């Protein structure tokens, strides 16, 4: 039995198979409409995350399965002091697979170690959110036609941004990728990442202004400056509007550059950009459902 805790849990070959499956699901949804009939997905969300939870639930419903679960700790037995280990033992009796979001880092791993069913980490604090990374990779692969051989700009909060760190780690396994890190000095990508890039001989550049590098990019990954990652409200207010992508900046970019964003956005992408065909962040949410469908099938070892 396998779980998914970290985007690197799967080898590149396993990811290729997962993405092939996700693309087949996207092309032939009706073929998979009953693949999980009689199976149940438990969504154990100890903190609210409407988007991720609904994406998982939509994925299971699209496969003909059912869903059950809770959407915040207050409505779970955790409010009575039950441990994650005990909860997952109980959930294992009720469902066939579990997606767990927890504010504490490592909680899904604890669950996996005690679980009788596959556990998917649906986000653990600032640590990992592997299905977001799989979503990003599938979006790039499907819309660019390849993983590798491009320049990707990552913009915004590169210090605290969990999705950015995971995406960099995942992309490092593919060839010929050049990274451009665009952030204010306070929110620079951590040293351990740039150290790793240097050790592996990966080309990267750190810049402050988006306008200076946007013309070189094949992909632009925007991120939100997250209030919950700051201890100090003043710092948050000062930095949150540092980068705003608008039509003026998009005019400097290549005709085939794609803009991705894990969402939700606050104001870092102006709504005027939404109609630009290069803005693919809403499509990305759709790919998120496809990749979760493929993941559920893979972990349940169901072939269609």
């Amino acid at each position, binding site marked *: 039995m396998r779980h998914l805790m970290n985007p690197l849990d799967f080898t590149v070959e396993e990811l290729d198979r997962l993405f092939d499956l996700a693309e087949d699901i996207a092309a032939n949804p009706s073929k998979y409409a009953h693949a999980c009939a009689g199976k149940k997905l438990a969504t154990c969300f100890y903190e609210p995350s409407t988007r991720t939870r609904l994406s998982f639930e939509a994925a299971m419903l699209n496969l003909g399965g059912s869903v059950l679960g809770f959407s915040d700790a207050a409505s779970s037995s955790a409010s009575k002091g039950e*441990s*994650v*280990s005990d909860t997952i033992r109980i959930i294992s009796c009720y469902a066939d697979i579990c997606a767990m979001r*927890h*504010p*504490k*880092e*490592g*909680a899904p*791993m*604890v669950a996996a170690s005690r679980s009788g069913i596959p556990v998917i980490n649906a986000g*653990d*604090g*600032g*640590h990992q959110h592997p299905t977001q990374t799989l979503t990003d990779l599938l979006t790039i692969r499907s819309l660019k036609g390849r993983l590798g051989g491009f320049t990707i700009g990552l913009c915004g909060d590169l210090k605290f941004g969990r999705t950015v760190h995971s995406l960099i780690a995942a992309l490092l396994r593919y060839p010929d990728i050049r990274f451009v890190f665009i952030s204010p000095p306070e929110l620079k990508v951590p040293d351990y990442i740039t150290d790793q890039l240097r050790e592996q001989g990966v080309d990267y550049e750190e810049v402050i202004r988006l306008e200076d590098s946007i013309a070189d990019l094949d992909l632009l990954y925007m991120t939100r400056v997250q209030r919950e990652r700051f201890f100090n409200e003043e710092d948050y207010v000062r930095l949150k509007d540092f980068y705003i992508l608008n039509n003026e900046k998009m005019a400097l970019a290549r005709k085939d550059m794609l803009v991705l964003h894990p969402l939700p956005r606050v104001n870092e992408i102006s709504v005027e950009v939404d109609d630009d065909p290069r803005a693919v962040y809403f499509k990305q949410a759709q790919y998120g459902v496809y990749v979760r469908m493929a993941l559920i099938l893979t972990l349940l070892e169901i072939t269609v």
Partner: protein
Amino acid sequence: MLNVGKIEEGFVLDHIEAGKSLSIYHHLQLDKLDCTVAIIKNARSNKMGKKDILKVECDIDTLDLDVLAFIDHNITVNVIKDGEIVDKKELTLPKEIRNIIKCKNPRCITSIEQELPHIFVLADEKKEIYRCKYCEEKASESTSSW
């Protein structure tokens, strides 16, 4: 000069950084053993200036030396049998240490679930970096002892 007699069977842990012997005493849980232990602090050393030494008279299979390598792999471990040194053990970094240090990350699941073992895994052998198995927080000087 203080003289501590020879032991018949057990270990002599030599070249311990001065001041660290008590911490090693606790980590090896020597307080739980019913055997003779000599703690020698601030002994003269040509190599180190000052050093600590631990002499433990016990069955040589009773000690878990993995933890020693984590604390300081420069410690020399002499294995004694019949009053003679029969082996000098090379200390290698353990792949995993359990309940030796505590994860200090306030966002780690171990901060709220008390019964979980605190496990650190060797993430980078060259740089001697251990990370919490659950949250991947790096073990550092500030990581508290058990």
